[in-house]
């Protein structure tokens, strides 16, 4: 019978005979259609260029020009029309062709049989939506609300349209949200108490500065384009001072590097303030006209602070403190950039308040080229249209419930009434990037369903039930702004989404459609829509006026990048602060309301426990942004494995040589990795850079506890994590 079939076989019939033999039904696979007759109007050799925006959680948020030939990307580089990035990308941005075309991308929706088993089966989008939608409806039925569903989304993609994920969750009812940010909360609260909001000067104004202090910031690795302006300023005679516990790449470029004992930067600022007050180097006029509480602060400093004390506390010699104080107070304008790393301590907010005060008493706030620059959000006034549809009729509960993103595992486990049973994770990799990953894993174990949308397999996807493949910036539409520079960048769709990838916005529409099919009215999120129309809806009149653009499409046609007008690029130029008093508040009642001292006072640093005497810092790494980029093989070819930096004196004490394998341990966890002996770190501190490495089964967070910073609740809802108050011991493994 088989032979018979063979002799009569044509292509399709033959296929049918095999189908019969192997019992294959019709439409037995989800594979794409296959080959079809060629469409008539096919032209090859077509070269086009598109504007894209790097959407990663980065100061520089670059405008990109993407060259596409025959529908595929051949080169990705910076957009020369942007005067901040000047047509150049950082090392990470230069790897984007590999990010898009690596064969390792997640291609299809898949379901894991047994969380963490590695046994994945391919499912269709419809199946994925059905499984998820049914679970949502079941939960709502069982618990009377959607509060057992928890969203954990943050900074993997800051395209404004990606807020569709938050919008989708809001559109099914009230849910539980991972709230806060591990990034900037203590410092932002500090600036909120002092000035009403964090607000930074345009970084292109480093060229206008007479004196620059980079305080715990390492732009050489985290904001290469800012470093260009800083180097230019330096060559024109601006003095560059770097204050940091570590000799960072940026510290290596400083005219003067000041090594401060970690977490004592507030004492250094207060010591400088004492010197400035004693020598009448402060701007009496400025404080009289623009501040409240100066006299209280003055008294506090006179009574409690001396330069000798500051020298003792910080490890910075008294003459150096005095000289730097004098130089800073007499340079006009003087610019301070406070890095996020500096405030990742239990006293981080208080330290930022002290540094703010230093800038305020010298009248450097509100000046072009000056400022106490930390972060800003002046250009983020989009409509966030995707988030505005509201809970459907008959949603149980009254409001969203929050758990802290910064103590996520523990708070998810603690949540009762109702418990959390389902998790949606997007633009995040909590299993690698959260402190105490073991606790996060316990929280995962409690879930009925974990859905993760991502580009690549990572620690979080490994522990998920369903993974949804998402698009790169080059395959979807969007618009991006920065929390540092003053540009808006359009993101065009340069190529078709590869495989079955979808943007977060498309996923939101698809899930809403399925929910409404299964139970009409169960989700208010629109079920269809053109992303080009969605993105236009983000731009309101204020944004258009601020950037002098008519529309997203107008900007797309005219260079792809636009700078905000000068009215906002000098922070606090009008000296109208957003505090209750409208003035700069040395004395902040708001701070007191949140349980802090109303003044920028010194607060003690976290003390090392005796059995774990070595501080382990985990600053950002040059080949990655959190868990993105470093795992790409272009970058693995340069640095293939994490390492721990150890001072020669400490290494000698522990009999550790360069490249020896070192065990790093504390009560939270341990790991082993190679040592790099270097004088770039002090002898009481080791450094392991933050990130996620392909094929490495641990991250720096294995020893990090969910220890809180002092501030964050005011503006960010939750306190941050004192990542750098991590104490360990080390030994040769």
């Amino acid at each position, binding site marked *: 019978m088989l032979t018979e079939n063979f002799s009569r076989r044509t292509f399709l019939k033959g296929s049918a005979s095999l189908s019969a033999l192997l019992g294959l039904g019709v439409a037995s696979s989800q594979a794409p259609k296959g080959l079809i007759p060629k469409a008539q109007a096919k032209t090859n050799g077509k070269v086009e260029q598109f504007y894209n925006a790097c959407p990663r959680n980065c100061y520089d948020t670059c405008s990109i020009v993407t060259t596409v030939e025959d529908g595929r990307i*051949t*080169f*990705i*580089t*910076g957009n020369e029309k942007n005067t901040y990035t*000047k*047509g*150049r*990308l*950082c*090392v990470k941005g*230069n*790897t*984007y*062709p*590999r990010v898009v075309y690596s064969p390792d991308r997640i291609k299809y929706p898949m379901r894991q049989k047994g969380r963490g088993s590695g046994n994945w089966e391919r499912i269709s989008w419809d199946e994925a939506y059905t499984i998820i939608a049914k679970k949502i409806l079941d939960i709502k039925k069982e618990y009377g609300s959607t509060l057992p569903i928890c969203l954990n989304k943050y900074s993997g993609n800051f395209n404004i349209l990606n807020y569709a994920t938050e919008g989708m969750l809001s559109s099914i009812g009230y849910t539980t949200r991972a709230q806060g940010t591990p990034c900037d909360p203590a410092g932002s609260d500090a600036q909120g108490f002092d000035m009403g909001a964090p607000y930074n000067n345009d970084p292109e104004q480093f060229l206008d500065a007479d004196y620059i202090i980079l305080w715990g910031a390492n732009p*050489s*690795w985290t904001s*290469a*384009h800012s*470093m*260009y302006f800083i*180097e230019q300023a330096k060559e024109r005679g601006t003095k560059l001072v770097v204050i940091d516990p570590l*000799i*960072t*790449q*940026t*510290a*290596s*470029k*400083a*005219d*003067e*590097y*000041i*090594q401060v*004992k970690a977490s004592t930067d507030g004492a250094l600022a207060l010591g400088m303030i004492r010197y400035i007050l004693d020598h009448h180097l402060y701007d009496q006029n400025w404080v009289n006209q623009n501040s409240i509480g100066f006299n209280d602060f003055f008294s506090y400093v006179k009574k409690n602070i001396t330069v000798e004390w500051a020298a003792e506390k910080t*490890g*910075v*010699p008294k003459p*150096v403190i005095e000289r730097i104080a004098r130089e800073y107070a007499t340079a006009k304008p003087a610019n301070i950039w406070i890095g996020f790393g500096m405030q990742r301590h239990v006293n981080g907010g208080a330290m930022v308040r002290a540094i703010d005060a230093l800038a305020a008493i010298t009248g450097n706030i509100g000046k072009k080229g000056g400022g106490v620059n930390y972060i800003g959000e002046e250009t983020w006034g989009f409509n966030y249209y995707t988030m505005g549809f509201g809970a459907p009729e008959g949603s149980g509960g009254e409001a969203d419930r929050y758990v802290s993103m910064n103590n996520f595992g523990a708070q998810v486990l603690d949540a009762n009434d109702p418990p959390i049973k389902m998790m949606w994770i997007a633009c995040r990799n909590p299993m690698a990037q959260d402190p105490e990953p073991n606790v996060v894993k316990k929280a995962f174990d409690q879930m009925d369903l974990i859905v993760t949308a991502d580009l690549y397999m990572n620690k979080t996807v490994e522990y998920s039930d369903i993974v949804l493949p998402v698009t790169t910036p080059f395959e979807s539409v969007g618009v991006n702004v920065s929390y540092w520079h003053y540009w808006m960048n359009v993101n065009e769709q340069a190529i078709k989404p590869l495989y079955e990838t979808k943007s977060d916005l498309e996923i939101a529409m698809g899930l809403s459609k399925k929910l409404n099919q299964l139970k009409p009215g169960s989700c208010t999120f629109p079920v269809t829509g053109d992303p080009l129309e969605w993105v236009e809806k983000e731009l309101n009149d204020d944004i258009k006026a601020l950037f002098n653009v008519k529309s997203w499409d107008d900007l797309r046609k005219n260079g792809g990048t636009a700078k905000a007008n000068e009215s906002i690029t000098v922070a606090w130029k009008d000296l109208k602060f957003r505090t209750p008093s409208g003035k700069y508040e040395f004395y902040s009642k708001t701070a007191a309301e949140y349980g802090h001292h109303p003044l920028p006072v010194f607060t003690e640093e976290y003390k090392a426990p005796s059995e774990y005497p070595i501080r382990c810092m985990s600053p950002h790494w*040059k*080949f990655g942004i959190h868990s993105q980029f470093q795992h790409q*093989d*272009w*970058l*693995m*070819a*340069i640095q293939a494995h994490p390492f721990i930096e150890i*001072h020669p*004196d400490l290494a000698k004490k522990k009999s550790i040589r360069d490249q020896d394998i070192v065990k790093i341990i504390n009560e939270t966890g341990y790991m082993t990795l190679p040592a790099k002996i*270097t*004088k*770039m770190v*002090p*002898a009481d501190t080791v450094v392991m850079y933050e990130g996620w490495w392909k094929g490495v089964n641990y991250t720096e967070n294995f020893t990090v506890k969910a220890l809180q910073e002092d501030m964050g609740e005011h503006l960010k809802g939750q306190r941050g994590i004192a990542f750098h108050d991590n104490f360990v011991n080390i030994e040769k493994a």
Partner: protein
Amino acid sequence: MAKKLGFLVNIERCIGCHACEISCKSFYQLEPNMRRRRVQELPEDVVGTPVRAFVSTACNHCDDPACKKACPVGAYTKREDGIVVHNQDLCIGCQMCGKACPYSVPMFNPVKKKMDKCSMCYDRLDIGQLPICVEKCPLEAIQIVDYNEVQPSNAVREIPTFADTSITHPTTHFILPKPGKQSRRF
């Protein structure tokens, strides 16, 4: 007078970011392990006080290129403007050039089974464009200089880790980093 083009690498500006290397790799679509430009860490004490210092080097387009001498099939030519060009079509992959170069510049591409090295993007230079690494360095730390026209007074030809320049007379010059003041705790 003919030109004598060479790289001028400003180590004072270089932040060791590797964007030069990766933009070159991206533009020329080189495989992950091929590096026409290489960013290397210099000893920590290169300026006296301990710092993180890097130097970015590519082909040094030597006045007296050892690769050219060593090549048995004449795959190397030195252009009028000084650029040393490797013709991959002629290359037989014998790797003699890589062994002869004091800077180990030519790399063996195991996929193509040919040698590979920086061309100073001469085809871009010929149409008035800059080499990719020059154009894409975020710090503008790499320049092309005609050393027959200009002799930058602050530039040197030798740096630690760089082989003796009297062998092949490389055209690459460097601007050394200036030591900053440091106040360290230990």
